[in-house]
Structures are given as structure tokens and as C-alpha cells.
């Protein structure tokens, strides 16, 4: 039986590859090659032309933007092997995934785990089609690292809740359609008094104010809730289960941030190529500044070790079934190294790497400065490095609570 099954599997993989190629040939507009709006989740509203829209709809209707999610909720229902084939073929064609954002990275996986059938059928398909943008209602002015100190309150009014309070650092809040939020339903119990609920951003009483950051960008907002009505069907899990669900979502968030995330993508060029462009070279083609050369190699070796660690975590989590507490290690390492890389880039470029505006700077130089500044957020949001250290020490290493 096994001998029969193997070639059949191979044949179907080959057939799938053909299917993907045909799909890409029919639907991927060549003018979008290599464009990809990797920053869609933080940069702003997707500036979608007709070609982008058609491409999103084509991918969305197949569920291939969320390839491994179940078909019954609009996902691709693909195996890991098929997903790899899809990614390979897309890369070959210069195609990119138009479906993204927090719905895909964080909320969707969490709802698939904790949501009711009704909630999954309502919320997952629009995510798969890239129609709905989600934002995260977590932090508050007095609940940053001490997230469980959140005070936004949802009062039980029978068939609905009435929510009052303030969230902050709401990434992309000004462009989002819906918000997954953790709110207090019981003031007597810090952790078990928290519930996870879904709030429409256009509901009466929701007000959003963008915050201008040191990078000059406004990717985050303050979000105010004044007597906002939230139907009971928007409660995910049980009342009081919000901290458990909310933490699970954070594991997904960390995994996403650790890859370097937006900042790494904005950095662009390879560090050593950049160095060869901006620094003096010796006759042998080496970077003449031996100290700088050593520091670049030092960084590149550690970056390599980090990428290998991220790869290893994926392989190992396959066995363990999903994201794990190693996500704290990856988040801590990935964000630190990405910042280090950014600092090194600026140092390599000298003052040319600190341009704010004007024709004297290339687009990538200006982008590098914004990325360097924006990147400072990565060790703060999604649970600061200090919080990750607490998680590693207590949950992974079994060291006792310091409080």
C-alpha cells in the first residue's frame, strides 16, 4: 500500500504545481511583479488600483492568501507541501501575497482555535478574501508591559455589552474595519476578569486619533470607546477567558515580529553590499576599514545564526503543533538584531544615512532613516524585550516570580 501511495502523492504534487502555474499565468498581472505592499498593516490604507484589486480577488477566492487555513472558512486547505509549492511558484513569477495584515497574522489563527463555529464562518472568510482590516485593542495608557492592568470596561446589558475606555498604540486603527480587543468584564479579578471581544470600528462612540511618531509616520493611534454597544455574539470564548486567548494571540504576534518584520523589509539591501557601496575598498576588494569589516562579519554571523534558529523553531513546532514559548526567544533576538543592523547601516553611510528629506538623498537612504526610527518600536511593542525575558525566565526556565 505504501509503495502505491508514494508515487500518487508525487503525481498530485506535480499536478498541483501545474495548477498553480496556470493560475498565476491567468491571474497575476505582470505589471505587479515584485511590487508587494509588505507594509500594508502599518503604513496606511492599501492604495489599490484595478490590477491590485483583481489580483487580491483572484487569490482570495482560492483562499491561497491563507493557504493552510481550512477550506470551509475560505482558506486554501492546502497541505504544507502544497503551500511550499505555491510559495515557490509565486516567487518564480515575482508574485506576492495580497492578503495580509493582523487578521491573517494574529487574529485569524486565534479565532480558528477559540472561536465558535458561527464566529469562524462570519469572520474568517472576509480575512481570507482580504476584505476586512483588523486592528488590535490591547495596550492602554496604564496597561503597557503590565497589560493585565487594563481598565476598559464592558458592562453586561443582557443581550449586549456597553464598552467604555481608552486603548492606545492601536496599529493601523485609522484604517481598520474591526478591532479585536481585550476588555475588563470583572473588576474583582485582574487576570480572570478579562474578556476577548470584537468591536466594529464604525460603531457609534468609537473615536480614533493617530499619534505622530519619531519616524514622522503615524502608524499607531489612540482609540476611545464611549458607550459603544457590542453584541454578545462578539464575545470570543467565555467571559473571563480573555487573558488566555489574548496571550495566545501574542505568541502569533511575536513570531511575526521576530522575523524583523516591517523594519527588516524596509532595510532592503544586504549589509555587506551596502558596505561595499559606501565604504572605501582596498586593492583586494576588501573593506579597507578593518574594524568595520570585523563588525559587519560579526553581525552577519549572528544574523545567520538567528535565521537558522527561526528555521529550527518552525521545524520543531511542527512536532509540537503550533507556536510555542520559543516565540519569546525569537522575538527578543530578531528585534535586537534588526535594530543593530539598522544602527550599523547608518554608521556605514555616515551623514548620508541620516537624511530626512530632499533631493540629496536616495529613496532607500530616506527609507533607511525611517526604518531605523520605526524599528525602535519593535523591542517595545508586542511585549517589550524585558517582558520576553520575564516569560523566558518564568515559563521556560522555571525561575520564580520576582513579585
Amino acid at each position: 500500500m505504501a509503495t502505491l501511495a508514494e508515487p500518487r502523492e508525487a503525481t498530485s504534487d506535480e499536478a498541483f504545481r501545474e495548477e498553480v502555474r496556470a493560475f498565476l499565468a491567468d491571474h497575476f498581472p505582470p505589471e505587479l511583479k515584485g511590487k508587494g505592499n509588505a507594509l500594508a498593516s502599518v503604513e496606511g490604507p492599501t492604495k489599490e488600483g484595478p490590477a491590485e484589486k483583481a489580483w487580491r480577488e483572484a487569490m482570495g477566492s482560492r483562499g491561497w492568501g491563507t493557504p493552510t487555513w481550512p477550506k470551509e472558512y475560505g482558506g486554501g486547505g492546502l497541505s504544507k507541501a502544497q503551500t511550499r509549492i505555491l510559495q515557490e511558484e509565486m516567487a518564480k513569477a515575482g508574485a506576492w501575497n495580497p492578503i495580509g495584515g493582523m487578521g491573517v497574522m494574529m487574529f485569524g489563527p486565534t479565532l480558528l482555535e477559540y472561536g465558535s463555529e458561527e464566529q469562524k464562518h462570519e469572520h474568517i472568510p472576509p480575512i481570507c478574501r482580504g476584505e476586512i482590516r483588523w486592528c488590535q485593542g490591547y495596550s492602554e495608557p496604564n496597561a503597557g508591559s503590565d497589560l493585565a492592568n487594563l481598565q476598559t470596561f464592558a458592562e453586561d446589558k443582557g443581550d449586549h455589552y456597553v464598552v467604555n475606555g481608552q486603548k492606545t498604540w492601536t496599529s493601523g486603527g485609522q484604517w481598520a474595519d474591526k478591532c479585536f480587543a481585550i476588555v475588563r468584564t470583572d473588576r474583582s479579578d485582574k487576570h480572570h476578569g478579562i474578556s476577548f471581544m470584537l468591536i466594529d470600528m464604525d460603531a457609534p462612540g468609537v473615536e480614533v486619533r493617530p499619534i505622530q511618531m519619531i519616524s514622522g509616520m503615524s502608524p499607531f493611534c489612540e482609540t476611545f470607546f464611549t458607550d459603544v454597544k457590542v453584541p454578545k455574539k462578539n464575545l470570543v470564548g467565555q467571559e473571563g477567558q480573555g487573558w488566555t486567548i489574548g496571550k495566545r494571540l501574542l505568541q502569533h504576534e511575536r513570531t511575526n515580529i521576530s522575523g524583523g518584520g516591517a523594519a527588516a523589509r524596509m532595510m532592503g539591501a544586504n549589509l555587506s553590499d551596502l558596505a561595499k557601496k559606501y565604504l572605501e575598498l582596498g586593492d583586494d576588494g576588501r573593506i579597507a576599514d578593518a574594524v568595520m569589516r570585523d563588525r559587519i562579519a560579526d553581525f552577519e554571523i549572528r544574523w545567520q545564526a538567528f535565521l537558522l534558529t527561526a528555521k529550527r523553531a518552525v521545524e520543531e513546532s511542527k512536532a509540537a503543533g503550533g507556536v510555542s514559548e520559543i516565540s519569546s526567544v525569537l522575538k527578543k533576538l530578531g528585534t535586537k538584531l534588526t535594530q543593530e543592523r539598522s544602527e550599523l547601516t547608518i554608521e556605514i553611510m555616515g551623514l548620508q544615512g541620516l537624511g530626512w528629506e530632499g533631493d540629496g538623498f536616495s529613496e532607500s537612504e530616506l527609507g533607511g532613516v525611517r526604518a531605523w526610527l520605526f524599528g525602535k518600536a519593535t523591542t517595545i511593542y508586542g511585549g517589550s524585550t524585558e517582558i520576553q525575558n520575564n516569560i523566558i525566565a518564568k515559563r521556560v526556565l522555571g525561575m520564580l516570580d520576582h513579585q
Partner: protein
Amino acid sequence: MAILNEEQEMLRDMAREWATNESPVAAFRKVRNEKPAEGYSTDAFATMAQMGWTGIVIPEEFGGSDFGWMSAGLVVEELGKTLTASPLVATTLAASVIVLGGSDEQKSMWLPKLASGEVVGTLAIDEGPRHGGKVTATVSSGKLTGTKAFVHEAHGATLFVVAAADGLYLVEKGEGVTMSDRKLTDQRSHAEVTFDGAAAERLADGGDDLLDKVLDRARILTSAEMLGMANQVFDVTLDYLKQRVQFNQVLASFQALQHRMADLFADLAMMRSAVESGLEALDGGYGIPRAACVAKAEANRALHAMSREGIQLHGGIGMTDEYDVGFYLKRARVLEASWGSSTYLKDRFANLAGY
């Protein structure tokens, strides 16, 4: 942890059980105190050979198991945890040179004996205290002349793989080979070996980069030993922090210490990824030079930090000979300096990457 096959899991479990029960740090302590001529317990090494560990990278036709480098690394890692004094790394590397560059005759002559443990081999490459200096040893009419510094496991070895200006040679212990002790802080076997017209046979079949290939293997297998050491220091230190009480609370409850352990834990994760990727590269036969740089550079960095913090976090008790943690510090520095210091490896990495 890399995804292992069943064979590898069994081998690792066997090595772990043996090292824990038969070769704990107390066994190293005994070797240190009793000072056997070879620098290790020959009985223990004979047992290791019987278990097949000396033949892991040797093809089956020459008496080995050909289990591969990942397997060799797993055993070496376990032995590193307990600081087992043995020439396993040295003799495995010597065997690998013959596999790569020996003639059929040389393979038939030496590999079965290396696999069985009857012959112990070692590398004699560097001529100074820092790796990567000029090789000046010369050979004329099959006689090799030169002096090699700090040869690992020289006292138990009967076969030397010697680097000369024009390639690698096999030299048997005997006429024209003399050695003088160079006792290092790790209390293991190191000696300056002088070859004065010693009979030498060239390893002619390995190509021009045979020496580089051997050094890459040395870097990767050494980093596996360092991985075991770093993990053990981490575990022992963590246990200590959970037991030691000051100010009426265990040290593990202090956040300043928790965060340092979290940093070290992350370092260990990167070190393991780098070392395993080096072993995988050897088994897969691709990207070896870069993988070797990454493996040993990360091993150097992480073990250096771990061995320092291990002492500091133990406090005064860590400074005593009675506690094991100091042994790891001393062995760590010897291995860091062997086959490439961090600066050497970074220079090599940059050269390989073309900058």
C-alpha cells in the same frame, strides 16, 4: 534540537547515559589527579571504541558505521557536557582526513585501526599559539621536518596528520618524532611535537584544499563539544540559582538574574542552531566553509559568555576547585583558541563572502 532519525536518537541516548553514569565530571577529576601518561583513561576510551564511536565517520567497508557527522556531533556534545577526557574528537578528525585524501592503500591501512580504536590519530597543523599562522614544515625524500605547537591529544596518539608547506602527511609515532609537554589550563593532553626527518606519507588524493576541508571539520566538531559544555554550565547554573538562598529568597527569584539567564538561553539557542547547521552541512556536503565559520564563531561567543557568567552567577563557590564550573571555563578558552579564534573566523567569513 535538530530533527533526528531513530538511529541518531539511540546513539545520543546511549552517549548521554554512558557519560552521565560512567564518565561524569568526577571521572575527569580523577584523570586530572592521577595524570595517566595519555592524558585520558585508556579503559574509558576502549569502551567508547567498543560502542563504535571511533568509527562514526568511517565508511562501513573500513570498519566504521558511516553514521555521519550529525551523529558524531551528538556523541561529542554529550561527552562535552561531562568534560570527558578522550581523544575521540582528535582521532575522528584524523580519520576524516584519510577518508577525504587518503589513497586506497592508506585507507585500508589506517581506517580499520582508527575505527577500532587500536590506533589514535590527531592533527598536527599549527606551529604557533594562534591558529592560522604560516606552515613551514617541509618534506624532502619522504622525510618531514618541522615543529608543531600545542598538538591536541599528542600523548596518546600514534598517528599524526601533519601539515607541511606542500600538503598533508601521515607520520607515525617513532623515529624522528619527539614531544615535550605543554600543559594547559584545561589539564588535557597538549604537546609540542618535533618531527626531525620523520618518515612521512603524503595524503595526495584530497585536492588542494584538503587542509581547509579538515580545518572546517575540526571547527564544526569542536563546536559540538563546546555546545555540550555551554549547555551543561547553563543547566548547572540554573539549578544553583534555584537552590541558593540569600535575603530569605532563592536567587532565581531576582529579576536581574532572571534576565541574564534569559539572555544566555537565547545565546544557547543561536549556538545550537549554528552548530547543528554545521554538522548538517558536513552530512549534506554543501556550504561547509561558511557553515563552519558560523558554527565555531557562535560557539566561541556563546561559550565565552556562558563560562564567565557561570562563575559570576555561582559567586565565590564557583571560584573553588571543588565546584565543577571552573573546569568548563578553562576548557572553554582552550577550545576557543583552537582552529580559529573569533576574530580569525570573522575574517575568514568576510573573505568567503567577498568583502
